[in-house]
C-alpha cells in the first residue's frame, strides 16, 4: 500500500487492506492508519480540551490503544467508529480525572470585556471556547455533531447514550451557545 502511493502503476489498496497489513504487524501500515485518522482524533480532543499539548497526548494515547487492540477491528468502517468512541470516552475520562479537571458549568461562562461584533476568526475562537466550557457530555455531543457531521443516532451509538439524551444535550447546548453569543452582541438566525 505504501509503495502504491508513490507508483501510479500499482493500484492504491483500500483502507481495509491497510488495516489488514497493520494487523499483520507492518509498522508502515499502522503509520498510514495514524496519518489517515490523526486529524479526526486530534480535532475531537482539541475541540474538547482546548489545549494543544493535552489534545496531542490524548490523541497519541488513543492510537496506542488502537495498536494494542488492532485484532478487534473488523473493517475500516469499524475503525472510524472505534476511534470516535475511544476518543470520546477518553476525553470524558480526561476531564473527570482530578489531575486534569477543567470543567466549567453550563451556566458559568466568562464574560468578555468587549461585546463588539467580531471578525470570523475571532468568532470561531469564541465558539470553540464556549463549546469547551460546556459540561463533558454535551460538549462531546456538540463536537461529534459539528466536527464529524454525524447524525444524532450515530452520536448516541458512539457515546452509548439514549437518543433522547443526545437530542436534549444538543438542544440545550445550542440554546446556551445562542444566549452566550447574544450576550456578546452576536445576532443569530436559526
Amino acid at each position: 500500500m505504501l509503495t502504491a502511493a508513490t507508483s501510479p502503476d500499482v493500484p492504491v489498496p483500500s483502507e481495509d487492506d491497510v488495516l489488514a497489513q497493520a494487523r499483520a504487524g507492518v509498522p508502515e501500515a499502522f503509520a498510514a492508519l495514524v496519518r489517515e485518522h490523526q486529524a479526526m482524533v486530534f480535532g475531537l480532543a482539541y475541540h474538547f480540551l482546548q489545549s494543544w499539548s493535552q489534545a496531542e497526548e490524548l490523541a497519541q494515547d488513543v492510537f496506542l490503544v488502537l495498536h494494542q487492540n488492532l485484532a478487534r477491528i473488523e473493517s475500516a468502517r469499524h475503525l472510524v467508529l472505534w476511534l470516535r468512541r475511544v476518543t470520546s470516552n477518553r476525553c470524558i475520562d480526561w476531564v473527570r480525572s482530578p489531575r486534569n479537571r477543567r470543567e466549567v458549568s453550563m451556566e458559568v461562562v466568562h464574560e468578555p470585556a468587549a461585546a463588539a461584533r467580531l471578525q470570523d476568526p475571532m468568532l470561531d475562537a469564541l465558539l470553540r471556547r464556549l463549546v469547551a466550557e460546556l459540561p463533558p457530555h454535551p460538549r462531546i455531543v456538540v463536537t461529534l455533531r459539528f466536527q464529524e457531521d454525524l447524525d444524532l443516532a450515530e452520536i448516541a451509538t458512539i457515546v452509548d447514550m439514549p437518543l433522547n439524551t443526545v437530542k436534549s444535550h444538543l438542544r440545550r447546548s445550542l440554546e446556551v451557545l445562542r444566549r452566550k453569543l447574544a450576550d456578546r452582541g452576536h445576532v443569530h438566525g436559526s
Partner: protein
Amino acid sequence: MDLERELRQALTRKSPPRGFDEKVLGRIASGEKVALPKPPARWTGYALPVAASLAIVAGGSFYFWQHERQRQMDAEQTARNVVLALQITSAKVSAVQMKVQEISRYERQAQY
C-alpha cells in the same frame, strides 16, 4: 448568523503538530501500554433505582407477611380464649346442675 453553520466552520478537523505519527510509533516501539478507557457502565445508572425498588418490595412483603402472621396469631388466641370460656361455663353449669339435682333429691326424701 446561522449558529450551526458557524459551529461547523469553527469545529473542523485539526491536524496535530508535525511528527505526531512518529511520536506514536516511538511510544509503541518503547513498549508503552495504555489501558483501554472503560465504557460507562450502564448498570451503575440503574443500580440505585433497582436497589430502591427491591428494598421497597422486600420491605412491603415483609410488613404484609408480619401483619398477616400477627392477625393469624390473634385469631388463634381468640379461638383459644373462646374455648376456655366455654369450658369454664360448661363446668359452672354442670356444678349448678348437680346442686339442683341434690336439692331436688333432698326435697323428695323430705316429702316421703
